[in-house]
């Protein structure tokens, strides 16, 4: 009886404990796995970001080098333009090609000024009836501006 009772009791107790342990272990394992996963994810993200940063830095350096090269080329072209447009150079060309150019007399020159085309439309925008006095005033101002 005692033995049965003891055995019975022991059996019951050990089963519960095992169950409890398994659950705890599973929970612990899950938490650890989660943490490891998080750490892994964090590290992976960090690595990815670093790679990305590195790649972008490299690209930025390349673009900077390209810009600097373009600047140098621009400077070179500007200097060439300045040399070519200097009067000395033009004069030499005129002499070399024996161009029969002479300066114009004053009355032979006429100056014309071309005004830049305006993007603003010149027609009066119809004023809405419901707009009231404020809109009407705005319309007048707009007309005054466009027809200036």
């Amino acid at each position, binding site marked *: 009886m005692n033995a049965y009772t003891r055995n019975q009791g022991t059996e019951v107790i050990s089963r519960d404990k095992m169950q409890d342990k398994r659950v705890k272990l599973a929970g612990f394992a899950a938490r650890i796995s989660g943490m490891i996963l998080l750490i892994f994810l964090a590290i992976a993200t960090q690595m990815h970001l670093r790679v990305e940063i590195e790649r972008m830095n490299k690209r930025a350096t390349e673009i900077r080098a390209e810009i600097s090269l373009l600047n*140098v*080329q621009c400077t070179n072209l500007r*200097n060439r333009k300045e*040399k070519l447009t*200097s*009067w*000395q150079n033009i004069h030499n060309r005129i002499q070399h090609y024996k161009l029969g150019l002479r300066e*114009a007399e*004053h009355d032979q*020159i006429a100056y014309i000024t071309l005004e830049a085309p305006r993007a603003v439309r010149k027609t009066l925008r119809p004023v809405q009836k419901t707009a009231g006095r404020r809109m009407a005033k705005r319309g007048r101002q707009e007309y005054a501006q466009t027809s200036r």
Partner: protein
Amino acid sequence: MTGYISIGKRVKFAFGIFCVLFVFLAYHLYGVQITRHDELYAKAREKYTIETRKENVRGEIFDRDGNLLVGNSPVGSIIADPCAIEKGKEQDTAAFLAQELQLPEGEIYQKLKAKEFTVIDKHGRKKTRKKRYVLLKKDIPFDIFEQIRDNIAKAKIRGISCQVSLKRTYPKATMLANILGFTTIDRDKVTARSGLEKSFDRNMSSVAGKVKYERSRDGKPLVFGEISRQNGHDGYDLYLTIREPLQAILEEEIDKLMAASKAAHAYMVMADPYTGDILAVAQRPTYDPNDRSQIKSNVMGNPIVEMAFEPGSIMKPFAISGALDMGIVRPDTIIDCENGLWSYAGKKLRDTHKIGRITVAEVIKESSNIGTAKIAVEIGEPRLKNLLSSFGFGQRTGAPLRPETVGQFYRNPTKISITRYPIGQGLSVSPLQMVRAYCMLANGGYQVKLRFVDRIVHANGTVEKIPVQKGNRIFRRPETTSEILSMMRLVTEPGGTGTAAAVRGYHVAGKTGTAQKVVNGRYSSKVHTSSFVGIVPASRPRFVLLVTADEPQGAQYGGAVAGPYFSSAAERTLKYLRETPEVDYETYDANLKLAKKRELERKVRIWAKEREERERRKAGLSAKTPVPAVRQTAKPARRNNSYRKSQTSVRRSYTPRGSRNYAANNGRRG
């Protein structure tokens, strides 16, 4: 029991060892952190900190409209690292580079082969070092350099690098060279040598940026390793008041002047009389700053500020304008020019030709020394000195060019100085001082400060405008300017000394000047300075132009030497400035024809009178009794006819001494 005892011993033993190690560690840490801190810290700093230097760009110089005058041009250099070139490939590399760089193959091969060099350290020991840097070719034009770089990259040659650097360039070559100056490289440092480059060196020099940071073993900067940062900046850009098209005109005209006159020096200065802006300056001899191998020291200066010269007759309008302003004379006041010879304080003063009694306007037109001297005597010594000082003589112009002369003004005045200074003798001025003085005549008598620099543009884009300074007014009477300009207009009209300087369609108010130069302490009759200064158009002045030829060969008179080139330069400038003619060409030509006819008639009258005089002498008849030289002092400013009548009566009442031998003014002289 035994086991417990042995464990306790082991623990104690281990504890003891740890204690000893800890003490050793503490001692060592003390040594490292405290005793040798400075030494080790310095070593670590030296090893792991690095300073990078970013060179910035020197400022550039532009004309007023933004045309480049001095810039930085990219050039390439080819550099070799002999240690990086594989053994046995030196010959091939040398052959390739020789073809690309147009250099002898043997020379390159020798450079590439030498992979080590010997140095002597501070203890006098010889050490061999690896050669990692050999400059093969420098200053390659960028267009060619780009091709070479591409070819080297395609050939995949190791140990050859291409470097781009900036070189100072002067795209307009000789244009404005003396004013702009140039820079040289002295121990890797840009040094300004002359001109504006030198004057504005501090502003135009760039400041190099410096970054000091800690680096990792592979040389990369640590993320938070920056120790210090000093931001640099580019040099400031200068925008001059010079206008390139006008400068080109003057450069061309001065070349023609030099070719025709074969002068030792020549200069042309053009300025805006109202703002004092120097619009163009041409000087000869000059040089090409891009090719300095041929430069001689005597061509590098700026005669317009450094050289003082005796101005001669171009000085005359100042004393006369002062006399007009003070009310001492009027344009039609008669001055007796003593028939070309006058004594003052025991010294003789001569005119270049015989002149009798003429008006003040004709004194300017005929460029009479005696007439001007007499007017100056009337002004008086102290007032004359003040007058000339107010025109800026004896004072620096403030031009940003060094050294600048103040000239010689009232250094050692004598009794006759009052008669010599107004005619431009005994004093010396710089060409810029003269231009400034003429600007004052042209702008209504306001003192003006000459400007070379219009604005400075900082590296961050901020524009610093150099202000125009308007000075005090010299003339008290508002009519003085118009009167003196009207008188000066006669100089370029028929009968004047500077007819060659006339510009079709415009009235030119100008003055010729022919100054004898002092050679061995005496005025030479062979060596001259010939000048012409003009204000164009006379009615609404746009610019003042001074043309001077120093020691011209052949013709010597200012009107003949400088006049034609003044005329040509002024005409072209007026066209460029779109200045509409004051008189239409038909009217101008008709007026000119009429004036020439009148002048011829006047000469015919004079010749007839002279002939009559000669015949009378031959016949033994006495000449008219000469009248003592009487200067007609100015009448009170009356504008009605009664003044003219009184003048006429004055003319009738005296028989002019000069009229007896009134010389024909065949040669118009300044």
